[in-house]
């Protein structure tokens, strides 16, 4: 059946849109499979939830007094804690400005035995701000009443 020019043009455009969308969808799915990082707390990791993830993000507080710098290199070790667990972390490089004791941090990296080797460490952005997802993850990890109450106070009202 011969097609009139309008229909032919429409068909071309629709096919082009479908092709572009298909290419994009395939790319997105592939890229998501390889580049998605889960956020876990130390207690979640210790209960085995990190099994199966090569790279993930570890979130929690820096344990007071746990920061140790190696004298001759840029290696730093510290412990990240949440209410139910603790995880030793090793990192080589420059830590963010706000990194200090009792600071909430998110480290990206992988497990090496019982240690977490970080490739990137982020600290919370200012005093009044705690990443919401970190707060939620910590709450979910312990389901602890105290933690939740504390969060409701600090979370809803940021000042």
């Amino acid at each position, binding site marked *: 059946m011969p097609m009139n020019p309008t229909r032919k043009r429409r068909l071309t455009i629709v096919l082009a849109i479908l092709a572009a969308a298909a290419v*994009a969808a395939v*790319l*997105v799915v592939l890229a998501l499979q390889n580049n998605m990082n889960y956020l876990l707390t130390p207690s979640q990791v210790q209960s085995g939830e990190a099994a199966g993830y090569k790279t993930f993000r570890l979130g929690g507080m820096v344990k007071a007094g746990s920061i140790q710098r190696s004298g001759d290199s*840029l290696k730093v070790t510290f412990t990240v804690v949440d209410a139910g667990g603790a995880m030793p972390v090793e990192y080589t490089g*420059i830590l963010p*400005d706000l990194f200090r004791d009792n600071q909430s941090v998110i480290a990206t990296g992988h497990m090496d035995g019982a240690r977490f080797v970080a490739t990137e460490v982020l600290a919370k952005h200012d005093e009044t*701000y705690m990443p*919401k997802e970190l707060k939620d993850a910590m709450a979910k990890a312990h389901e602890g009443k105290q933690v939740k109450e504390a969060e409701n106070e600090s979370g809803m009202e*940021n000042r």
Partner: protein
Amino acid sequence: MTPELGQLALILAMLLALAQSILPLVGAWRGNRALMAVARPAAAGQAVFVAMAFGILAWAFLRFDFSVQYVADNSNLALPWYYRFAAVWGAHEGSLLLWILILNLWTMALVTFSQKLPEVFASRVIAVMGLIAVGFLAFIIFTSNPFGRLLPMPGDGADLNPVLQDPGMTMHPPMLYMGYVGFSVAFAFSIAALLGGELEQAWVRWARPWTNLAWAFLTCGIVAGSWWAYAELGWGGWWFWDPVENASFMPWLAGTALLHSALVMEKREALKIWTVLLAILAFSLSLLGTFLVRSGVLTSVHAFATDPSRGIFILGILTIFIGGAFTLFAFRAPALKSGGLFAPISREGALVLNNLILTVSAATVLVGTLYPLLLETLTGDKISVGPPFFNLTFGLLMAPLLIALPFGPMLAWKRGDLLGAFQRLYVAAGLALVAAVILFYVQHGGPVLAVFGLAAGFFIVFGALADLWYRAGFNKVSTSVAFQRLAGLPRSAFGTALAHLGFGVTVLGIVAVTTFETETVTEMKPGMAVEAGGYTVTFDRMMAAKGPNFTEDRAHFTLSKGGVDMGEVWSSKRLYTARRMPTTEAGIRSFGTSQLYVSLGDPMAEGGIVVRVWWKPFILCIWIGALVMMAGGFVSLSDRRLRVGAPTRRTKSVKVALEAAE
């Protein structure tokens, strides 16, 4: 002036905005001219009261009125006056006030320059602007009052977030909002056209320059934000694919697509429905951008001052405006007639390809930004999608655009000659490849694939120049005649060429800095030196210094190349005293378009310090290219045919434009 007056002004502004939106809509519907005539004076009244509210807040900052909670939270006795003024939009409440102020600027520009539009259409457009104002004013008044009191009044304020105390950051929000909010004009035009059920050719002649202006501002805003992140955060990166950055980038992509599809609509009366849809999309993404930055729903490195409860309200605004617009579109769009035919290989075809790639890549950015949020809502899993995701998807999707771009302007409308375009471009392509190979060889290092990226950048630059070359006819007529013709080309031709050229320069900068940059992280003691980009960076000493509201440890570095002194650079770690907040101030030194970037880490034993030294070759090209793109937008806008301004000559130029279009 007491802050309560500001609150009162906002309430009055909202009442006027209600009048500005409801009465003219009813008037346009019933054909009542008296009701339609309310639109302009109501808009003017609203603008006066919003400006008043903004002025009162700015005044409270300038005279240290810490009895206002917002002022106390975001300024300090030691904060210099220019940062106190910029602090007006330094946090949530004030930045919304800036948003609404800019909305009023755009509305007033519309009111002034729309007097030649048909009355029914103009009053609908102004009414839609009024509706947007109602939404945002209600949001400010009910959830985010910047004039709330703090009693008893504290002796000093908590200071502006130190990372915002930077020239880039003072520029960034106003420019960005000029862009975001500017898309509301095209949006209002679309809604008004859909309400009226007819899409005049005049629609696009009016909507395009406004979009052009908004797009240029948005480009500038993104540049300022990117420069700020680079210079102020001290991480040496210029783009992080952070949700907040994506929030500004998506409207830009949609707006860029809109500029190009509006061109097809104006010249060929095709793609009408699509253009209206893009206008709605661009503003929807702008609203989403405001939502993403201001609700704190997404994790983000620069989400400061967040309050999830406000998210509900913005979600409501989003639902009403985006949902309403798309519903209206679904009902009314089929009534719009679509026009001119064209072959796939043609100027129109090239612009369709442009639109396809831009919208699809905007969609992937949207997926990457919202997918984590969606997954968390559905399954409770917390994930993050990092830069590799965006680099892979966005990068691959953009690749065909880079190659196709120079061909577009070479193709004729309706039916183009691809072979002819090849013949005109092979010199540019050849030169681009040679330039890329030379650059790659000189810089040595990096993956060979980078040659193609560099060649693509050069190809776009040379292609834009070739476009002007052939338009002026340098290949056909004598050089002097060609120069005369070049001078006589319409400004929009230069605008196109400049914007494309700028894009090529940006691509070059991105590829070059990604491929050739070097990073050294090391502990340095006084007297030690590191090499970067052929320069020797020697650490001399640390010294303590004091600024108006901070103390700092400054490190002094001397630069040399082959034994020749090349100057010095200071890099410091600051402690802002009011918030006890440390920041890193990178030391940046430019050599041509390349930069040395020195930032400090932790102090070590025996006077040593961790130092991070980057060599960033051609990095300035990224921002220079984007600014050239912006300039292209402004040059296009100055084209006689599209001129928005020039009130005294307007009658004449509109007539000329109408005649030219016929």
